[in-house]
């Protein structure tokens, strides 16, 4: 079995199984967690309104911190969008999903994908360096923070290299790309990357909590 056969076959299969089982395990854990009952009376009604507002309001930087965090915020936004554009709108990736679910959709031109991937990878590198060099960021970062960025970065770099036929032979690069995707799948449910699914619900919960105490969200 060649490296590519392994990557396309058992590696992706097992990684996907661990990803799905891990994700449901995490979701189940959060759902089943016993929560303390609020002991005070709600200051406001329509709690859902607070949750809903928080879900959207946090998509833009808070006015108080705007000057200090705009760059980070913008970079974060761009690379997240870039990542999903590359993941979901690249012809070859759509082909992958079609093979799995039988569904396909129109792709963006390869040049657009190439630019999106390059910008995304560049921003991630920049943010990684920033995290490692800024004293405050450094102090609040642990292994998970660095590893998660690297694990997201690897599929982008190997994907770019295999698309452009750079570095190693195409089949080796493609195998490394698929293996890096497998690593991302295995890492995601058990790391901070799990925010992919928890972010919006936790914003909602936070919004509800703030709202019932009368805090503006």
């Amino acid at each position, binding site marked *: *079995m*060649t490296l*590519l*056969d392994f990557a*396309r*076959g*058992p590696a*992706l*299969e097992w990684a*996907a*199984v661990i*990803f*799905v*089982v*891990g*994700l*449901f*395990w*995490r*979701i*189940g*854990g959060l*759902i*089943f*967690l*016993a929560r303390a009952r609020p002991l005070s009376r709600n200051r406001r009604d329509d709690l859902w309104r607070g949750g809903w507002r928080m879900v959207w309001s946090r998509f833009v930087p808070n006015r108080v911190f705007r000057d200090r965090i705009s760059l980070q915020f913008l970079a974060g936004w761009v690379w997240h969008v870039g990542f999903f554009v590359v993941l979901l709108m690249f*012809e*070859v*990736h759509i*082909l*992958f999903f*079609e*093979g*799995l*679910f*039988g569904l396909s959709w129109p*792709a963006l*031109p*390869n040049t657009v994908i190439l630019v999106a991937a390059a910008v995304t990878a560049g921003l991630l590198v920049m943010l990684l360096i920033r995290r490692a060099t800024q004293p405050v960021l450094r102090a609040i970062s642990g292994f998970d923070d660095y590893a998660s960025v690297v694990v997201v970065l690897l599929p982008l770099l190997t994907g770019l290299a295999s698309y452009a*036929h750079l570095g190693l*032979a*195409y*089949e080796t690069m*493609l195998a490394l790309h*698929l293996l890096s995707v497998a690593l991302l799948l295995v890492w995601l449910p058990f790391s901070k990357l799990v925010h992919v699914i928890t972010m919006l619900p936790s914003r909602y919960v936070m919004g509800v909590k703030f709202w019932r105490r009368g805090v503006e969200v």
Partner: protein
Amino acid sequence: MTHPPPSLSDRLRAHGISRRSFLRYCATTASLLALPPAMAPRIAQALEAQRRPSVIWLSFQECTGCTESILRSDAPSIESLIFESISLDYHHTLMAASGHAAEAAREAAMAENAGQYLVLVDGSIPLGNMGFSTTAGESNVETLRRVAAGAAAIVSIGTCAAYGGIPYANPNPTGAVPVSEIIRDKPIVNIPGCPPIPAVMTSVLAHFLAFGELPELDDLGRPVVFYGQNIHDRCYRRPFYERGEFAESFDDEGAKKGWCLYKLGCKGPTTYNACAVLKWNGGTSFPIEAGHPCLGCSEPNFWDAGSFYQPLSQATDLDSRTLALAVGAGVAGAVVAGVAGREAQKAHHEAAAKRAADRSKAEVSE
């Protein structure tokens, strides 16, 4: 008085091939082998002097496609004459003799040319049961060992001899193996392909005849000059690939316009062979030019590397059923662990509450 066997140049003349054509052939062979043009006269000289070197062709678990490919030509070409000009002392399909006479011819060739003859093998060798494939009562593996012992070099022709090929594919019912798993003490050159390109075969032979050694090989034992680049890098449909223009089916507009066949499962990007350059049938065409994706037939395990029509970017083992099972397992695991966790949480809270109550009771009694 006995005459020495005719040299290659005698035989070419006898076939009405001019010296000019022969020299042109040598120049082409030199360029195919990526040798400097100055080497062409040396090849010519060496080939002309050749006195029909002995070649023993062993056919094991094979379909005779390789023999067909190499020997079939509408008009006798110089390549095929080169092939004829070796002394093919043993070949099941081609030799006139049969039965004991055929085996005797092989034994005689081996004795007369000990240490100097070339062994060409097509087909894989079954190790599962010695009776699966035999010749004159001898198992393939015994024949190979015995014949290879006195060989100067071995040429594994076709993917079956080189890497096991189709008989080696899962579940490999005969326990087939390639030549290189049995013979380890002789120079072996692999010329994979199902079948291999005739010009590659004759050029490797010409190289051996002219220089007495095999050409430079890669890590899979293939001549680098022919297998150094993948099909994709030399494919004339590559611009369509770069532009993201793909045929979606065999008869859509894209297919008619000659767009890239990646989506139809083309294995060109991972297949190392010279098809896109040398082509087939006298340079007429090659599979991709004929509208069919490359199957990757010259690569090891090509038969087991997923469907021929599945794009390279798709997973081979993963499917939606596996994912659905994983969802079920994940949900079931989460429910069990969640309920257990909740119980533990409850027990913990109750114990804490009890401790607090005990403490306050004790304080009151004090």
